């Protein structure tokens, strides 16, 4: 446990805030993600024309990529195996090439079946306060008494 960088369960309190972590999903990032994902291109995530045909003003970040970005923000904080559940609601299309702010707020802590669980609200917002994606995450943390 001594080499652990992330938090322990005992460090966490209701109302604690994580982040915000700021990043940009560039056109290139989205193309790379679609290649890895195996989604045939061009598509509404990579092509202006196909985005417009889908009623979107411009290509958007895929929902599964937004989930990956938010998961990474949480696992960077809590540790690679900490994330047990992520339940998201997609409220607005997530744009390319604009700052995305990912943050979380601790709303509950509990011990259940021998696990130390932390419930968080998670949010991906734009610079002007746009709420792109929001939801909850369940994180399991080690105890510093173990």
């Amino acid at each position, binding site marked *: 446990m001594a080499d652990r960088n992330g938090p322990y369960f005992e460090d966490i309190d*209701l*109302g604690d805030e994580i982040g915000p972590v700021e990043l940009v999903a560039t056109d290139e990032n989205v193309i790379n993600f679609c290649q890895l994902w195996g989604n045939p291109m061009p598509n509404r995530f990579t092509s202006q024309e196909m985005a417009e045909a889908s009623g979107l003003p411009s290509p958007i970040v895929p929902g599964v990529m937004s989930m990956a970005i938010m998961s990474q923000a949480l696992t960077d904080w809590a540790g690679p195996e900490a994330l047990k559940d992520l*339940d998201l*609601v997609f409220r607005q299309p997530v744009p390319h090439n604009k700052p995305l702010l990912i943050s979380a*707020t601790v*709303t*509950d802590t509990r011990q259940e079946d021998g696990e130390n669980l932390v*419930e968080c*609200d998670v*949010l991906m917002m734009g610079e*002007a*306060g*746009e*709420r792109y994606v*929001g*939801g*909850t995450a369940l994180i399991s943390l080690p105890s510093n008494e173990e």
Partner: protein
Amino acid sequence: MCDRPFWGQWRHRSILQALPFAPIILELILRRMYLDLHSHSVSSDDSRATVEQYVKWVHVLRSKRGYTIDGFVLTEHRKFDFDKDYSQLAAEYDVLIMKASELDTRYGHVLVYGVNEGLAKDIDLGDVKMDARELMKAARHHGAIAVPAHPGRFGIGLVDYMEQGEAFPDLHIVERVNGGSRAGENERADALCQEHNFLGTGGSDAHLASHLGSCVTSFPTEVRDERQLVEALLAGDFTPVWLKDTNP
């Protein structure tokens, strides 16, 4: 006549004895009530917050952040939870929990406070094409009140419909400050209130626990239940307030 000096003396003593408590007494007299009039629990399909998480969040706002919030209203989408009883939770955490609805209409979303069996019989709460004017009339007929939610919302708010020429003669109150608004939307609601002399409420529109209370409505009188909430809204003495402004 003979007891006058005694009475005067008693009153004098009482005032002196009460002096150390004057700030507390003054606070009790002047104390306003702060209620979040717009929130959604997991009973609404797009919310991820349980009512228990909300009451715990109220505790965080009060004890850790120093804000004042007395309670909140659950305004579930297209329904009213007649069968749900939160009184035990409310008592356990000393938080007022009230129930209401946020209904879809062809002129945008409308918050309805004081929903009862009679109104639910007259109006199909799930009808997304209902006329907001009919809803307002039916609500008043049944002792409830209908308040358009986030009227400044681009594309779906009441402001857009009024700009297209729709009139709402029975309308006096709208939600002026909504915690889920995008840039410019609360400003549009504000302009609507100023132009038509509408009164305005405040609500967080929380779908996550940590968004509860971001804005609230301030009342000068105590509200204990849904009936008193309708009365307080009809009385017209209330203002929308951002959470930071509840910090004494």
